[in-house]
């Protein structure tokens, strides 16, 4: 049975492998030097237009449930960005063709000072907000002042990307300078500016609402679509912005964004029955069905989410021993864990750095390591030895395993992990499933021994998540892990501007995390999208996450 599941897992990884291979080639090219890396990743040219595109039509897009509020900056979920982004622009953006290359948006070009401490953006003239107001650098300044230093009661998860931004200066109405207190890698900073979350909003809008837009629906943007109507938890309808600065775009006249629960049969049914043109976050069963349908394209791509297993070092003495944590890390058969949830959510195996990041250990190498091998025997043997050496050869009893509710993946994994730990290490735990909001409350309070959840990052760059996932007293470091060697190295990685040196340092950091696990990476999530072939202009196969390319300005419909 186990062999059969593993072989299924192997066969299902072909697409992933070929994709990683492509990334590997890209990574090798990047390794040739910073200049090589930079040139394909940035393109300061007019945004692409498809000569074959036909204007008109309506795009019916299904994505996530309704947003909990309307403040995109304060949000951390695709519920906001998926529905609202078409109404806004950013300073710079990721090219929808590959999801990676940074291209101009409201800034038509940018300069980075040689010392890396000043980023200047040259802004387009004649851009107007949907309410008719002119767009100027003051709007960018107000937007970024809020993101970098949020007012009281405003929580912006991406503020940490801009911790080195000191002054934001407006030399003239169409130029803005970000002066950094300390240089950061160019790719990191530009990636932060290009994040789809950092939409530009009007200064007046922020002033009128005391910097809090949570309950302000459809505040004016400069984006390709304008708000028409919204039915809570049902649909958000937008129309083409006829005054859009990027003449000729968007192609479609109308956008209907339907709020449907991710991974739900309801979303799958809506797509398969033809009630949607494009569906994001499909469940694997509907996605496989869609893939078999004629006239439909289905893509799977990487998501900026890690599925994590925590061991509370502050509460359980055994977990303070690095050997026990390493043993638990090794006792998990990741290939089985990925297979267990294959009908619930698509997952891939990875270590402590995004497995598809250019600096992470390549998959082939990773799978030779204990804990990642297809045959777990050697890893389990080593795990048993470690437990014995740590004085826990008889196992550990009565651990409280806190499971995040709401998603079937966590339930399935919890049962599988409980069995693996019992069978391999004689570690016994009692499962306790709680609602998502309670999970984070209890985890933050340290009321758990073992825990399972998913956490996210804004960027693929490790400097973003090294601090929030593994940092000392970091927001997602629920296990209370510390390792001075790692923390010091992570600080240096943040500052290192040479890509090659940085890559070496990231590998060193990986090694530390492997030997002294702060948490256990169970798997990395992937996203299933599908669309009817009448939809052109967007293929997310190479995208990272669902938060950067979300505007639909370059999408066109064949039947129109």
């Amino acid at each position: 049975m186990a062999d059969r599941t593993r072989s299924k897992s192997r066969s299902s990884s072909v697409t992933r492998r070929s994709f990683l291979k492509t990334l590997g080639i890209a990574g090798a090219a990047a390794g040739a030097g910073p200049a090589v890396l930079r040139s394909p990743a940035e393109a300061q040219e007019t945004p692409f237009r498809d000569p074959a595109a036909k204007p008109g039509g309506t795009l019916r897009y299904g994505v996530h449930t309704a947003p909990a509020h309307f403040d995109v900056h304060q949000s951390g979920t695709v519920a906001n960005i998926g529905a609202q982004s078409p109404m806004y622009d950013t300073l710079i953006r990721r090219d929808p063709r590959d999801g990676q290359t940074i291209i101009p948006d409201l800034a038509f070009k940018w300069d980075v000072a040689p010392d890396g401490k000043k980023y200047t953006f040259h802004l387009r003239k004649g851009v107007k907000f949907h309410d008719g107001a002119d767009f100027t650098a003051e709007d960018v300044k107000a937007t970024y002042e809020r993101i970098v230093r949020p007012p009281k009661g405003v929580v912006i998860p991406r503020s940490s990307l801009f911790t080195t931004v000191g002054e934001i200066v407006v030399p003239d109405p169409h130029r803005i300078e970000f002066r950094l207190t300390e240089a950061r890698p160019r790719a990191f900073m530009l990636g932060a500016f290009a994040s789809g979350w950092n939409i530009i909003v009007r200064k007046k809008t922020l002033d009128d609402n005391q910097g809090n837009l949570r309950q302000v629906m459809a505040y004016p943007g400069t984006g390709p679509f304008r708000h028409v109507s919204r039915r809570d938890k049902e649909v958000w309808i937008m129309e083409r912005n006829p005054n859009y600065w990027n003449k000729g775009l968007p192609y479609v006249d109308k956008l209907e964004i339907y709020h449907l629960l991710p991974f739900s049969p309801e979303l799958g049914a809506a797509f398969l029955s033809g009630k949607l043109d494009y569906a994001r976050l499909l469940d694997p069963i509907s996605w496989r069905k869609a893939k078999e349908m004629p006239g439909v394209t289905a893509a799977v791509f990487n998501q900026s989410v890690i599925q994590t297993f925590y061991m509370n070092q502050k509460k359980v003495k055994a977990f303070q021993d690095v050997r026990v944590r390493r043993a638990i890390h090794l006792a998990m058969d990741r290939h089985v864990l990925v297979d267990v949830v294959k009908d619930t959510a698509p997952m891939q195996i990875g270590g402590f750095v995004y497995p598809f990041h250019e600096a992470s250990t390549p998959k082939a190498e990773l799978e030779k390591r204990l804990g990642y091998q297809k045959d777990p025997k050697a890893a389990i043997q080593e795990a048993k030895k470690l437990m014995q050496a740590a004085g826990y050869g008889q196992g550990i009893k009565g651990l409280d395993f806190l499971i995040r509710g709401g998603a079937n993946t966590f339930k399935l994994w919890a049962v599988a992990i409980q069995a693996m730990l019992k069978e391999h290490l004689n570690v016994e735990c009692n499962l306790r499933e709680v609602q998502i909001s309670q999970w984070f409350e209890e985890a933050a309070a340290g009321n758990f021994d073992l825990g399972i959840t998913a956490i996210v990052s804004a960027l693929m760059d490790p400097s973003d998540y090294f601090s929030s996932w593994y940092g000392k007293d970091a927001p997602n470091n629920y296990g209370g892990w510390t390792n001075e060697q790692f923390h010091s190295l992570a600080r240096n990685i943040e500052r290192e501007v040479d890509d090659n040196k940085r890559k070496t340092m990231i590998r060193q950091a990986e090694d530390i995390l492997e030997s002294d696990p702060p948490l256990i990476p169970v798997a990395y999530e992937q996203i299933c999208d599908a669309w009817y072939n009448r939809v052109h202009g967007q293929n997310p196969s190479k995208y990272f996450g669902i938060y950067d390319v979300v505007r639909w300005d370059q999408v066109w419909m064949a039947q129109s």
Partner: protein
Amino acid sequence: MQKYLLRRALFALGTLIGVSLIIFVVLRILPGDPLVAILGVEGHAKMAPADRAVLMRDLGLSDSLPVQYVRWMRDIATGELGKSFFRGDTVRDLILHRGPLSAEIAILALIISWLVGLPVGILSATRPNGWADAVVRSLSVLFIAVPGFWLGLLIVLALLFWFGYKAPIIIVQLWENPWQNFQLIIGPAVVLGLAQGAYIARMSRSCLLEVIREDYVRTARAKGAVERAVVMHHALPNALLPVITISGVLLGFVLGGSVAVEQAFGVPGLGRALVVAIVERDIVVVQNLVLLYAGIFVLVNVLVDMSYAWLDPRIRYQ
């Protein structure tokens, strides 16, 4: 009669106040933080204690419990019913938009339960212990036992995979497009109606079996009335009283069952809104919807009690 109604109204009011207190206290005792849904996991993790205090104040959750309760009662009195924590929409608007769909489902389910349950019950009672009775009794047990949401999912999947069909994905009101509206409500109504119909069938069968043995039924037969007239005109009206009583109770089950069944069918009614609000810890929405359901349940039961006198002139209000 007036005295009776006043007494029942006061009793209903007392029940609703009790329900409101229980919901109010339970929702505030239950663990779970609405800020996780508002800010998302990442934002919640990075929230400073000072920001938390501001957010809780803005939501009105930092006030004392009596102040929060009085504010809720004031919102009910003004008809506003408060605002959702999340998008600032009023609960009144939510109920006005989604309520008609759920009401249609409940009414249609009740009609289906009678249309299916009553004839089946009569058939079963007039031919007791025959093969038809056995089949009908087995089916009624089956429909009682099968969970509505599971049956709903099966129906959705069967329609999708066999016919590529899915009901509309947004609310279409009866007055906007009756046909699309019908497509939205028919699935949940059938599933809920069949389950309730099974209860109606069992109840009407047992009541009818009891009444059929009464002296006045024998007298009717002795007068030479045909069997159909005996059952329909003499036995059935008297057997219906307990069936009507159980229908009131069943409406409660329909309301409760609609929460899961609307979710299974993906129908955006009040039941589904309640599920989402519970997941999001949107206390204001949950407490108002639960109270609304309780209010409907109490009202229906009062109406059922009142209908007794109309159906059986021997019963007098005291």
